[in-house]
């Protein structure tokens, strides 16, 4: 049903008329020092694609590389962190594979299921839809700062909480509201994933920069030039597809390009149901925010305005 020809989060295979299987894989090197926390972040990130496609994760398999000098308890810590989040997701780890490598890397291959008619892709947004996010931005900048010890314990904990929060509840809030499109915000940054959504549906997305939830410390760090190379890669890759109004402060637009690890969902929903979605997110303790809307296609795929709508 979904494969290489779209830029969706996972592959979807129709098993029969009532069941579609969603398959995805994701792994990366440590972005935090603590093995258990790294395992949790990697698992939250890998599981997310299944929720973004409208499914429920059921089976996961570990992928692990580690240098022979890595202590056994670090390896066990990573796997325990992954196990913790897979359990929380309601899935089970059924195996995996590990090989020796110079650098540790961890992630999972995750399979989930949905009814075929409930599969969500990133290309279905309609003119008039409202876009909603479910986590604050800034984890790429914050983890760059963390590498150099520039975060207080409280700031680090806030970053970690964002990256280890599963998108399960956000999806639970979203499904009954029947969104038109969904994806999760990861390496391409908010603007990269918004551009994919705009490209896929053939319309233009107007983003309200002032309405996008951002961790305040990330804005401060952006002003100080603590921005990962990936943000600049996203900027040059997106180029003229994105028009940013000159009234948007530079540090704010920088964060909109910031690559996220285990970011939140980006949901398109008809305007008439947007308030219901925001209320459902609030009820489940998810920080949802309306950040833009879909307009008829003009000369740009994405327009970023200052202000909150």
């Amino acid at each position, binding site marked *: 049903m979904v494969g290489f020809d779209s830029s969706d989060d996972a592959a979807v295979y129709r098993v029969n008329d009532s069941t579609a299987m969603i398959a995805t894989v994701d792994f990366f090197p440590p972005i935090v020092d603590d093995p258990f926390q790294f395992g949790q972040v990697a698992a939250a990130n890998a599981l997310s694609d299944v929720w973004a496609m409208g499914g429920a994760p059921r089976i996961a398999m570990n992928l692990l590389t580690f240098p022979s000098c890595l202590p056994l308890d670090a390896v066990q810590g990573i796997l325990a962190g992954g196990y913790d989040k897979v359990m929380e997701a309601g899935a089970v780890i059924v195996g995996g594979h590990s090989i020796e490598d110079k650098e540790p890397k961890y992630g999972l291959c995750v399979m989930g299921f949905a009814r075929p008619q409930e599969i969500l892709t990133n290309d279905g947004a309609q003119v008039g839809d409202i876009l909603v996010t479910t986590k604050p931005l800034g984890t790429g900048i914050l983890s*760059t*700062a963390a*590498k*150099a010890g*520039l975060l207080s314990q409280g700031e680090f904990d806030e970053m970690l909480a964002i990256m280890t929060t599963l998108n399960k509840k956000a999806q639970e809030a979203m499904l009954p509201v029947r969104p038109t499109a969904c994806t999760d915000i990861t390496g391409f940054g908010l603007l990269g994933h918004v551009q994919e959504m705009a490209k896929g549906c053939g319309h233009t997305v107007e983003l309200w920069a002032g309405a996008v939830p951002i961790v305040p410390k990330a804005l401060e760090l*952006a*002003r*100080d*030039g*603590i*921005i*990962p*190379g990936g943000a*600049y890669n996203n900027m040059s890759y997106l180029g003229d597809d994105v028009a940013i109004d000159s009234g948007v402060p*530079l*540090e704010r637009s*920088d964060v909109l390009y910031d690559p996220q690890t285990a970011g939140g969902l980006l949901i398109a929903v008809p305007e008439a149901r947007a308030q219901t979605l925001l209320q459902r997110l609030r009820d489940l303790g998810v920080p949802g925010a309306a950040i833009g809307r879909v307009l008829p296609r003009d000369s740009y795929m994405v327009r970023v305005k200052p202000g909150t709508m």
Partner: protein
Amino acid sequence: MNQVDARGYSCPEPVLMTKNALKSGTPLVVLVDNMTPVQNITRFASNAGYKVSHKAVGDDFEITIDK
């Protein structure tokens, strides 16, 4: 002239090295080997009230920071 060679370092190190070197005054010249530290150092220094310019020198970049 005050000079910092931040080639071979990845972010955020070049910014932190620049910040540290600015304590000894301006003008400061910073050498880096890709555009990410150029953009990061430009953001940091201009937000801190300095004048910043850069030019390509071979495969590297030379950033000049002054009051």
